[in-house]
């Protein structure tokens, strides 16, 4: 309960103003296409030079929590996921916004973000020592199996055809290998200079999701004026809250998966949302509604990716090991002020540590309030006339993908992938499994390579990858997941056949 005694620090006038500024700024930065939470936090670090360590951390903590939630705004309204965490949100959120329910989607997204986020931070407060051990337990072989477990989700994720889902995943895995190989530095599949740096995930996300959608709008042609016809019912906060209570299953699946996966260094943050989304669908009676604007999809994805924020900081705060890119940036921000995370932080600078954690707690709540307050207004963006929307998303895609690394190569990759994806989608391939392949490829490969090297110095790869409780547990999960996919695929096939027979 030590954290309670430091709550005062958060409510000092300067600190609270910073918290407010960090939250609002974070939402705007998060909603900007091309700006991931990592970059947003890195951009704010120079501001902390002029602040005391505590104040600086309040700003960074608030910004971190709200950029993750802010990414949902562009995912829902523009179908441009701000970061890998928001991919799953885009699937159902954008479908909802297109039906004129943008405000409802935003309400659900912010409320479930807030709930997931608060629970995540509470876990960080109460279970840090336990969680730290858990984070360290994951070695290369386990991370490899985790990535493979993620790959098994590919076939069932947002795709009507099992084969094409897997094939989309393979294309993603291949794309992830383009460029310099991370372990040995060899060049692979570099056909042109723009590819030498590999395919960066953020421009790829922008291209794969935003560009096909722009082309879809082009396809409607210039005489179709039916776009602004949808009358939007006013979404009241009470209704959204009631809706959330009706979807406790999705909310708890999201929160549990988000916080468990979030702790695992190097894997967690990117896939938490997608895995939770997939699980929520497997447990849901309305499987077929996912992807068409189903509230459960948004709730699971958003509660997962904010629940991850708190636990993902455990390895950083206790062991000084950054478990995610954003945690690495926060570490930089701490070191600049001469504060080293680890036991030193909690023993010698408790006011810094606890004020930081408390600010994330209050930040979550401020984020929900501010997000809900602007949702109705922001949702109008999704109802802009089609030609404006198409042109605006196109220009945003250019600026967003350029600003990631200030590289024209990224911009060219973004558009090429986007145009390719449009045609692939026309034939039943989908972007979500492709992106999952793109994210998991490097994780699987580098952990496999590093693990193999270590195993050569020990008892060989078979022992290293296949023995040990955690390995066996993960392998069992992999098999279970594959078996489930085949089974549900077969059941689905039978059901379709039955329906066709009944119809004929």
């Amino acid at each position, binding site marked *: 309960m030590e954290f309670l005694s430091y709550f005062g620090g958060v409510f000092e006038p300067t600190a609270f103003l910073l918290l407010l500024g960090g939250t609002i700024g974070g939402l705007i930065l998060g909603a900007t296409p091309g700006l991931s939470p990592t970059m947003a936090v890195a951009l704010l670090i120079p501001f902390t030079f002029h602040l005391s360590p505590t104040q600086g951390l309040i700003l960074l903590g608030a910004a971190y929590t709200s950029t993750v939630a802010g990414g949902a705004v562009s995912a829902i309204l523009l179908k441009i996921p701000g970061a890998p965490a928001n991919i799953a949100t885009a699937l159902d959120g954008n479908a909802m916004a297109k039906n004129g329910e943008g405000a409802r989607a935003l309400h659900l997204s912010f409320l479930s973000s807030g709930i997931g986020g608060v629970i995540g931070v509470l876990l960080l407060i109460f279970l840090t020592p336990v969680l730290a051990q858990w984070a360290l337990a994951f070695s290369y072989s386990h991370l490899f199996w985790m990535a493979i477990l993620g790959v098994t989700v590919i076939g069932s994720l947002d795709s009507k055809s099992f084969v094409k889902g897997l094939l989309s995943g393979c294309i993603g895995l291949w794309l992830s290998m383009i460029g310099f190989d991370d372990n040995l530095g060899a060049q692979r599949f570099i056909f042109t200079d723009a590819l030498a740096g590999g395919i960066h995930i953020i421009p790829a996300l922008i291209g794969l999701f935003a560009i096909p959608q722009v082309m879809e709008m082009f396809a409607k042609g210039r005489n179709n004026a039916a776009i602004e016809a949808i009358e939007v019912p006013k979404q009241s906060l009470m209704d959204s809250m009631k809706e959330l209570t009706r979807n406790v299953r999705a909310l708890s699946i999201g929160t549990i998966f988000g916080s468990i996966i979030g702790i695992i260094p190097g894997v967690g943050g990117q896939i938490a949302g997608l895995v939770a989304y997939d699980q929520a669908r497997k447990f849901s009676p309305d499987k077929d509604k996912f992807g068409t604007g189903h509230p459960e999809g948004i709730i699971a994805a958003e509660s997962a990716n904010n629940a991850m924020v708190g636990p993902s900081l455990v390895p950083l705060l206790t062991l000084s090991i950054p478990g995610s890119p954003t945690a690495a940036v926060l570490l930089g921000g701490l070191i600049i002020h001469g504060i080293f995370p680890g036991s030193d932080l909690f023993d010698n600078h408790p006011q810094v540590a606890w004020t930081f954690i408390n600010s994330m707690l209050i930040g979550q709540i401020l984020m929900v309030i501010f997000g809900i307050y602007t949702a109705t207004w922001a949702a109008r963006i999704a109802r802009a006339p089609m030609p404006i929307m198409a042109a605006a998303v196109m220009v945003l895609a250019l600026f967003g993908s350029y600003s990631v690394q200030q590289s*024209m190569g990224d911009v060219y990759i973004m558009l090429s992938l986007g145009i390719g994806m449009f045609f692939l989608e026309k034939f039943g391939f989908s972007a979500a499994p492709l992106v999952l392949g793109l994210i998991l490829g490097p994780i699987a490969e580098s952990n496999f390579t590093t693990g193999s090297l270590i195993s050569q110095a020990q008892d060989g790869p078979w022992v290293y990858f296949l023995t040990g409780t955690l390995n066996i547990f993960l392998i069992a999960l992999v098999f279970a997941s594959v078996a489930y996919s085949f089974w549900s695929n077969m059941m689905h096939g039978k059901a379709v056949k039955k329906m066709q027979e009944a119809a004929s």
Partner: protein
Amino acid sequence: MTASRLQHTVASGVVLLVAALVTYISFTQQPADAFLFPRLISIFFIILAVWNFARAVSGVAKVGTGLNATEFKNILPGLIVMIVFVFLVAKSIGFYLSSAIAFMIIYTLYDPAPYSDGKAWGKRLIVTVCFMAVMYCLFALLLKVQTPSGILF
């Protein structure tokens, strides 16, 4: 409506070709260590691509709407503008000016209002200017991103 068997065959044929190319490169390039993982993936890739191709040829593939001529005719002008804008002029003319022009062209191409309508032109101009002003505030002033300024802006 689903795509025709021919369209599916062509599309899955292209994917098969890519898979074949990836497999070929993976197994012929050196150093072998660095291509171990690509080889593994490419085996799955090519098997799935062949399976997919077989399904398309035999007419089992039913997912996906395919392309139709009207849609494609609608897409083409926008697609050309987008490609020319991103690949050819954005860097050399400068992001802000070229974006404004591309925005205006796309908006005009797909705006249902007739070209003779003077008021519609005024609205297009105002929306373009406002949007670019927001972009400038966000990227240049707030985020301080140095975009290529090319010969103009």
